[in-house]
């Protein structure tokens, strides 16, 4: 009885949390309901599940996904939980399986937790791929990698070191311990230090703390670092949500501590142009990431590629892309190098995303 009630409540919660991409009316609809509503058009439905629906970065990703779907001629259906809950993502995926969508693209909140439901989806003939934050290789057919994790990880510490003239204390605020991409970047960040001990001999890297991709938690962690490590010179945070929270906290604390990481220009322009607390930061184009995911899904859906290394396909305005082997043994497609946002170009990019 208790389990039935729990299931009912979860279903109710998921139903309330499900949102659609750009149609406010459809936000309250379940994937099955939406699927039914698209049936008369007889167009395949490509579903995108983001990490969290209010995340601007994720919304930009949806934007690109929708654009590509329109170009491809399929129906885009975008969903996202109200928090970074993997359970909510599972529920959404289950609904989508019931709806018999053609594609499920997910920015995973957990690398392994989605495995069962995604395998079930693939068994049903649904094309499954992850983007931004990957699921494990067995849970997907392809991963859309925003950038080379090695490059991202190494450039973050290189940039931070450069900002403090290769000498000082560096703190890291990441999301969760389960976030695939963040973990990978931080691993490469540490590898960079390990590979270049001489270069980073005057750098003290503090243990990373977790902001859970939530504003409050990130603020708490920022305050914690400021209080615990008064010698702190710079904070690295590979999360768009955390970047804003860290910037605001440093501003409120009137701190001289710098910060950098991965964030959205639209949210962080003031910290470069006014506060100067962030000399520069990095990010790839989330719009392009969503766009590439849709075209990759279409290539799989149409049978143009199998998701094997060396497969090539046309990705619309992004031209041709090549499937490559990923570090986890699966396959992936790179979007490209991240963009460096500084005072020279932030004015332009803050209007884009």
């Amino acid at each position, binding site marked *: 009885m208790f389990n039935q009630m729990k299931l009912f409540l979860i279903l109710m919660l998921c139903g309330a949390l499900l949102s659609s991409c750009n149609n406010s009316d459809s936000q309250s609809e379940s994937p099955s309901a939406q699927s039914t509503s698209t049936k008369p058009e007889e167009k395949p439905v490509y579903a995108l599940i983001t990490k969290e629906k209010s995340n601007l970065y994720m919304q930009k990703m949806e934007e690109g996904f929708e654009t590509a779907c329109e170009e491809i001629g399929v129906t885009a259906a975008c969903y996202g939980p109200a928090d970074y809950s993997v359970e909510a993502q599972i529920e959404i995926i289950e609904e989508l399986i019931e709806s018999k969508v053609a594609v499920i693209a997910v920015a995973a909140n957990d690398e392994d937790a989605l495995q069962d439901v995604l395998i079930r989806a693939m068994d049903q003939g649904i094309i499954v791929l992850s983007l931004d934050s990957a699921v494990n290789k067995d849970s997907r057919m392809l991963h859309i990698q925003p950038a080379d994790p090695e490059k991202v990880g190494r*450039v973050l510490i290189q940039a931070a070191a450069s900002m403090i003239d290769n000498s000082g204390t560096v703190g890291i605020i990441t999301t969760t311990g389960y976030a695939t991409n963040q973990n990978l970047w931080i691993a490469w960040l540490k590898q960079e230090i390990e590979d270049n001990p001489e270069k980073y001999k005057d750098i003290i890297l503090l243990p990373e703390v977790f902001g859970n991709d939530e504003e409050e938690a990130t603020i708490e962690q920022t305050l914690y670092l400021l209080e615990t490590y008064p010698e702190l010179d710079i904070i690295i945070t590979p999360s768009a949500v955390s970047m804003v929270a860290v910037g605001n906290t440093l501003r409120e604390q009137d701190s001289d501590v710098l910060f950098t990481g991965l964030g959205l220009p639209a949210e962080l322009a003031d910290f470069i142009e006014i506060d100067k607390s962030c000399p520069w930061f990095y990010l790839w184009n989330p719009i392009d990431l969503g766009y590439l995911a849709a075209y990759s899904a279409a290539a799989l859906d149409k049978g143009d590629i199998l998701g094997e290394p060396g497969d090539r396909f046309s990705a619309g305005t992004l031209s041709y892309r090549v499937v490559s082997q990923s570090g986890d043994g699966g396959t992936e497609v790179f979007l490209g190098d991240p*963009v460096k946002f500084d005072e020279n170009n932030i004015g332009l990019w803050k*209007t884009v995303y």
Partner: protein
Amino acid sequence: MGFLNKLVVSYSIVILIFILILIGIAYNYIVSVSQQTASINQSQLLNKISSQVEYYLDEMYKMGSQVASDTRIINMFNVLQEEGDPENYFEYSIMDSIEAGSILTSFNAPDYLIWRISVFNQYGDYMSDGIEIQNQTGEEKDKLNVERLMDELQSQPFLLFFQNDADYIEEDEYSDMTMSMLLPITNYYADEIYGIVEIQQNMENFQQFIALDQLEDSATVYLLDQEMNQILPRDNDYNSLDKDQYYITYESVNTYGWNLALAVSLASMTKPYQGILGYIILVSFIIVISLILTIYIITKRITTPLTNLSKSVRHITLDNVPEDLVKDESMDEVRELNTAFTAMLERLTKSLAYEKRAYLLALQSQMDPHFLYNILSIISGMGLESGNDDIADVCGKISALMRYNASFDNNNVTLGDEITHAKNYLELMKVRYEDYFVYSIHANEDLLQMRMPRQVLQPILENCFEHGFKSVPPVWRIEINADIKDGRWYISISDNGAGFGDAELLELDKKLEEYSKNLPENYHELKIGGLGLINTILRLKLLMGEGVEYQARKNTPRGTIIILQEGKNINDKDTDS
């Protein structure tokens, strides 16, 4: 074919030819106008495309200039130039690689109008942004080739290449034809080239931008470079174009020296006007048919009275001449024709009446001589019985004389006949006047067979006895001479009678002139004997025209000489008689 059909067919052919000429002129005019219109439209279109091409290349150049003048790029390549490291710096320097990529992508964002922006130098340092290619490391770059390009850029602000020319870079097998604009990354002060900025555009994108794919199928735009090498389109060779079948307009892209040729098939140019032409032909056909029908109706209206007139004339007899030949006189011309025919028939009727009367008179005059011949024959017999041979001789001459005069069988006789007849007459006169009268006749043998009218000499001879000899004492003399002088024949009859006075000669000339003016009208008024001389001369003129001349003058010491001679300006055939 009847008169009506002949007229209708003739008029129809003329109208048909006229309409065909009109259609031909209209068609040529339409073609000419369509070509002029097309020429204007093509010029405008080509001018627009030229502007678009220029704008497109300008944008490439602008982008290249922005990148090439970015101090961060200049500084990076300045350092790389000094280091001369053969490794691609951007491969191992992640931060600078991302920075360089960010600079490039920031120039191109947010619309990404440029297909790919690359920066590189001769040492293999290479970074690009935009459409990915397989070999993005630049390792394949030919160092010597890049150095050559950098040398060329020392003297030129930019270089333009196409895929076939851009052999310095290995293209991805999926990449389409591209064009690249290369600009130098320079130090403003040292004037040294550190590297090259390559602004690369996909030709498909270029074609879409200048809207070549929007052109109609019948039109093709050819883009040719400075050396007239074809750039676009790739599947249609300009040199193999049949220039006679296309109307071609040219335009140059001023700044970049490219040339544009717009070829539009002539057939397609006149196609919009084919409908109009068809309409013209249809209308012309209707007009032709209408005109032919109209012509038929009008012609029939004209020819029907004429046909009726013709039928009437064909069935008319002189015994039955109707008052109106054609009943329908609604047309002036027909009325005139009818009147003319009627008048002609009236005159013909009168002439026939004269002819009938003359014929009866002739028959009557032939009746009398037979009676006289018989009498003369009886007298001749009586003379012989009484032993007077002279009576028989005289009767024979009179009979011959009368037979000659009364003969209608042959109006044209020879001079010899006339001489014989004149001799008979003069012999009779000799019998009567005996020694009071003498005569002589001299005739050239060559002239005896000359044809001439009957009774020319006798009336003149009669005049001698009637008028000439009455008032003068004998011996009376008459001389007849017929000879040839200066190649012309002449006959002179001279007497020693009273002769003509000057007034009489003038009166004779006047009458001759008066009667000569309307000879046929006055002929019937001439009476033999009354105006014998005039009668004779007029008959001669009537028959011989200008072939004969007449002359009357005084003889010496007295008398008259009448001379008839061949006209000066007459041809031989006119003198047939």
